[in-house]
Every structure is written in structure tokens, then in C-alpha cells.
């Protein structure tokens, strides 16, 4: 098999292409097996060092990456930003170069500035960079988790084996992404990933939470939210941050819920077999009603569980040389 993701930085979904997505999902299926063993550890990355640099707080993504690295027997070097040299005024570049000098193989980077992982990828010599979320730009592993989870669910229903289904399950699916798309790195990664996988993507949000210009995006902007819900196969509900709902972007969270929240009432409009995803953390009662979140059509728990195998796959591919991976 030709390997497109092996040995590469993972900065944005577009860099992977559909082949890369398929490959990564396949590797993740294999690592999913590891999760079900009694000893949930493989020696794959023994002797490799993975640094997790989170310049923005994120407990779940960081833990998920660190768990993934440990399952692969890599050594994990975790930079606690609060007590780090960054607080003393050290630049991102110096921090990264210092850490690389300690002999690391991969950097998992979360940063509030879009593009920081791209810049870090230019600054490092040999380490591979994995984007764990950069500003409003990309969060590739989160989107991959969503596709992975949806694929598992759909394959199950169709009585197929998930690992053999490729991306064919996404062909022609109607995916509706709802909420604060402007400020969402998850949305940007998801839209690229679903579109590459062959789905038809529609977005719905208040005018102020739409990106400034989506003319070059592979999406349609929903003219009517309710109609879009009726035809959706998958609804991706995004997190609505409190600070956007204080009058600067929407008048109030209450009004957001009333107009674009996934309320119980709106969930009735969905097809019976539609699926709902949410990248977490959910704010129940704002973007998603509790009853909807706990509905069996909502995949949020499964998404969280799939975080580890996806990140194992991301680390494994980034740290394998193209030749090694193609021998598999």
C-alpha cells in the first residue's frame, strides 16, 4: 500500500488527502484492537520521545495524546506551560528548539495562534509535528475521530467490518455542521475531512458565526436550518463558547439556543437513523439539549473512546518512515 501520511507532519486535514485519511483510519482500527487486550500496550514506539506542548489549556486532548503515546511505549515529555519558561518570556521558537535539543522525535502542539504548528514544523530539524489544535485553524485528530466513529457506527448497522469499508460509507452522506463555525478549528478540519471522504457538507450558523468568506470551501450554507436538519445523515454540533454569546457575536446564549441549538424539538426533525457528533466538552442546554446528548443517536461517548486509537495512529504514522509503513 502506498503511504502518504507516513513520516509526515500532521498539520491540517488537507495535507493528508483522502488516501491519508483512509490509511490513518485503518491504522487506528488496528490499534483499537490493542485497546481491547488485557495488556493495553505495544512496543511500537519504544525508545521514541514524544513531547506534548500545550500552550493552551486542554485536559482531554492532552491526556488522550499522552495515553496514546504511552500505549505505544514512547516516552512522554509533557510541558506544563503554567510553570514553564514561556511564562518567563521565552519565545515559542526557543522553547521548541530547546526541547528538540533534548532529542525528541515528535511534538504534539496545541497553540492559540493559527499556524503555530506550521511555523514549528519549519523550525525543527528532525522531529515530526502533530497539530493538536491551532487557533481557529485546524484540529485534525478531532475530525479523524469523528469520521472514525461515524464509520464504525455505519459499518455496524450495515453489517460490514469497519476496517474493510474504506471511505465508501461516506459517499453521498449529508453532513450538517452547526454552530460557531467562525471560531471552530474542529469545523475547519471536519469540513475538509468529510468532503475528502466524499460526503456533502452543509453548514448552518447565525450570520455572525459564519466565517467571513466560505466561497472556496467545499460547503453549502444552509438557507433553512430546519430543512437542513431534515435531510442530514450526520449532524456535527459544535461547542458554543460563553464569550461569543454575550452580545458581541450573538445577543445571548439563550437566543443562540433558541435559533441554532440542537433542542429536543429540532432533534425530532432528524431522520430516524441520523447520527449526532460533538467534539466535547458539551454545554448541555446551550448547543445541545441533555435529552439529545443522551440519545443513542449521539456518538459523543464513543468519540471520546476513539480518541486514543486515532492519536496512536497519528503518532505511529508520523514517526514511521515511508518505507517502513509501506512494507506493512
Amino acid at each position, binding site marked *: 500500500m502506498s503511504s502518504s501520511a507516513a513520516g509526515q507532519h500532521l498539520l491540517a486535514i488537507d495535507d493528508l488527502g483522502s488516501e491519508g485519511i483512509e490509511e490513518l483510519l485503518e491504522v487506528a482500527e488496528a490499534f483499537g484492537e490493542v485497546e481491547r487486550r488485557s495488556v493495553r500496550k505495544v512496543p511500537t514506539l519504544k525508545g521514541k520521545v514524544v513531547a506534548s506542548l500545550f500552550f493552551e489549556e486542554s485536559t482531554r486532548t492532552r491526556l488522550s495524546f499522552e495515553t496514546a503515546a504511552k500505549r505505544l511505549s514512547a516516552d512522554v515529555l509533557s510541558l506544563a506551560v503554567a510553570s514553564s519558561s514561556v511564562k518567563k518570556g521565552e*519565545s*515559542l*521558537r526557543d522553547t521548541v528548539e530547546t526541547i528538540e535539543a533534548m532529542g525528541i522525535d515528535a511534538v504534539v502542539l496545541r*497553540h492559540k*495562534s*493559527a*499556524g*503555530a504548528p*506550521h*511555523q514549528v514544523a519549519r523550525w525543527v530539524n528532525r522531529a515530526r509535528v502533530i497539530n493538536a489544535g*491551532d*487557533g*481557529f*485553524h*485546524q484540529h485534525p485528530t478531532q475530525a479523524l475521530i469523528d469520521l472514525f466513529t461515524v464509520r464504525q457506527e455505519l459499518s455496524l448497522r450495515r453489517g460490514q467490518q469497519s476496517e474493510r469499508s474504506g471511505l465508501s460509507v461516506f459517499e453521498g452522506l449529508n453532513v450538517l455542521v452547526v454552530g460557531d463555525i467562525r471560531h471552530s*478549528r474542529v469545523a*475547519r478540519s471536519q469540513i475538509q475531512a468529510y468532503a475528502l471522504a466524499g460526503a456533502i457538507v452543509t453548514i448552518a450558523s447565525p450570520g455572525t458565526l459564519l*466565517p*467571513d*468568506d*466560505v*466561497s*472556496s*470551501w467545499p460547503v453549502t450554507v444552509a438557507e433553512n436550518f430546519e430543512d437542513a436538519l431534515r435531510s442530514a445523515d450526520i449532524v456535527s454540533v459544535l461547542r458554543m463558547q460563553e464569550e461569543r454569546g454575550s452580545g458581541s457575536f450573538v445577543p445571548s446564549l439563550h437566543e443562540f439556543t433558541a435559533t441554532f441549538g440542537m433542542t429536543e424539538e429540532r432533534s425530532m426533525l432528524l431522520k430516524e437513523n441520523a447520527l449526532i457528533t460533538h467534539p466535547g466538552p458539551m454545554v448541555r442546554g446551550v448547543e445541545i439539549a441533555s435529552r439529545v446528548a443522551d440519545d443513542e443517536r449521539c456518538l459523543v461517548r464513543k468519540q471520546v473512546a476513539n480518541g486514543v486509537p486515532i492519536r496512536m495512529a497519528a503518532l505511529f504514522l508520523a514517526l514511521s518512515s515511508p518505507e517502513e509503513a509501506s512494507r506493512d
Partner: protein
Amino acid sequence: MTDHMLIRGGTVVHRETTTRSDVLVVDGIISLVGEHLDIPAGATIVDAEGCWVGPGLVDLHTHLREPGGEEAETVASGARAGVLGGYSAVMAMPNTFPAIDCSAVVAQVLALGQASCLDVAVAGAITVGRLGERLAPLAEMAELGVTFFTDDGTGVQNAGLMRRAMEYARGLNVVIADHCEDEALAGDGCMNESSLSSELGLVGRPALAEEVMVARDLALAQHTGCDLHLLHLSTVGSAALVAQAKQAGVNVTAEVAPHHLILTEELCREYDPLYKVHPPLRTANDVEALRMALRSGGVDAVATDHAPHAPETKDRPFAEATPGMLGLQHAFALTREALGGADADPVLLFRVLSRTPAKIARLTQSDQRRGGHSAHGGEIAVGEDANLVVIDPEGRPVVRSEDLASKSRNTPYEGRTLLGAVRHTIVRGEVVVNDGVAQR
């Protein structure tokens, strides 16, 4: 003892035409222009064979960073970049630390300018500390010869205060220049607002932010009758607004920076802060419109917005990096590239890079008040001050950061082949650049 210099064999670029002429300079003054002039005994010979001989360039928009930003640039280093770029005069912007907002700082920068290798005019701030809150002592600064006032770096956000500034300036017969970006619209933006910024997840600075303020300033200028100059216009819409206002008789002039004539937002795709600048790089459409406006006279002048920055302020995440790029050393060739390439008319080039900016900056007459600057951007004729540049239109130098005279290295043109080379620059009769080498 008189000092003779003969500039031989070049093509002299006049206001409307070019002629094949030698130029004799005696004691810093042009004393003869004509074909095959005799060489006076002991004269310095400046070889201009195959070259254009034009008035020294005049930059309306130079950040010399002194006082306060000496790590990035000093008056001396910026002046050296200027003369290597063919400039004989530059306008120092007031966003220094402290800001140039009173006579003491004006005097300090003028003195530094006097010791440098070209004429430094000083722009004063419109408001105290450039904070946009209350008027700076414009009259006090005008006493020292300051004719150009701006809060550049940011625009004056408060329309009421801008109106007062224009009313006050009109009485002093000075120019009010504005950095047109409405902060409420530009906000935290760091590149052009577009489908690209949306894709990259970078907050945009919309064209709208510029155009809203351009429209406001034009209305205020029309109402007050003040001379208004608009700095670094970057959008199709701004160019159209200015053209319209000129038709309506508003006393307005406008400049465009070389980077807005050459580079587009596409360069931001890799998140390299080298391409971060305010106002931001726009689209190919905007570039084309600005080139046309410059040709038609809708936009009057090219001004560099030369903005040196220390590496640590640029080597950061895109959104956190300081905006601005170098421009002084390569502006002539870049303008030529924008205005038709090798076929660009030298008359037009010297109009937008020397004669018109000299007029806008009011540098066409010498002035003894500010330590005596000479006259710039004039005709190459008997009796004029010898501020001249000799440019080889066939030269094709390649931009290399190690050749920059600036103390900073933030040029977006590294590796670019330039259309033409500055061979000699003469300021007040002194050869300050000889064969492409700065003499001091």
C-alpha cells in the same frame, strides 16, 4: 575652492521627456546640462553611460525607529538604506518611543538626520503620544519646519478629534496624513479578510476597515478644506473613493506602498510573519487597481512604509508578530516592475517616486529652518540643488539579506531579481553611493 562633478553619458529624466545629457555640478548646484560637456580640470567624473539620471527619490513614509527602536533601525542605518535605494530625502514617521509629538523630539530627529547621508524631514504626531486623545502641539512643531502630521501606525479613530486636527492644521498650512484603518473593524485582524483568512483561521482586517476611514477622512477634508494625505492605500475601493474625491475638488493626495503593488495575500498561506503588514497584503485585484490608479494619477505617489523590525518581534506566531516590512532599498525596481516592467516609462517612475512625493512633503524648496534641507524632486536644470540618482536600467541585482543596509532583515523580497540597479546617489552634490556602494 570650488568642487566640480560631471555626470557623463546618461539619459536625463525630465518632467515630461528624457534627453541624452551630461550634468555639471558645481558646489552642490547644477550649473550646466547639455550634450558632451567639457571636463573641467580636477572634476569628479560620475559614469552614467547607459543609465537614467533623475532627481533623487523622496520617501514620504519611512520608519527610522529612532529614538527608542535603535535595535531595529537608526537614522544613520535607515538613511544608508535610503541612499542605496536612490533616495535623497525621507520623511521620518513619528511612531517612535517617545513619539515625535513635541519640538524636543522633532529637534532630536532633525539633528540625527543632519548627521546622516541624506535629508531627513520629520513627520509630527497629530495627537499626544499618538494615543488619539488630544491634539499634539502642531504649531510648536511647525515652527521647526514640520509640515506633515500623522499618527501613522494607527489612524485617528475619533472623527471629532480628526475634524479638529484638520481645522487646526489648515490654519497652519500643514498636511494631515492618516493611516486609514478603523480599529473597530480591523480589530485583532492580522491578514486580509478573505476566503483565505477564513480557511487559515486567521482573523481578517477587511478592506472595509480601510475604506470606511478613507471615506470619513475625505468627507472631513472636504468640509474643513485641509490638505489631506492618505497613507499606504491598499484596496480597489480606496482607490475609487480617492479618485471620486479628487473629481469633487477635495485637496487630497494618496500614496501606495511597493508591497501593495507587488505582493498578494497568498503569501500568508504558510503563516510566515514576514508577510504580515498593516494594512495587509490584499488580492491580485487590488494590486491591479492600485497599479492603474498610480498610472492614471488617482494615487499620486509610491511611499515605502519601510518598517524595520528586530527578528524576535517577527519570529513569532503570525497573530502575535509585529506588522511591517522593509522597502526603502528596493522601491525603485519594484515600482518599475509594477508599472510595466522593463518597459515602464522613466518619466512616470520619477514622477511617482520623486517629484510628486517631494511636492506632497513640501520639500521642493530648500528650507534653512530645519538645519537646512535642500530642494528635492525638481527639474534637472541650472540652479537646482544636486540631489540626483543614477540608475542602470539594465542592472539585474538579486536581493540578498546580507546586502541590506537596514539593521533589520525583514525583507519580503529575498532572492528576487530586481529590474534595475541604483549605481550612484548624489545628495547635495556629494556622491553618497558610488557604483552601488554606500560611501558612509
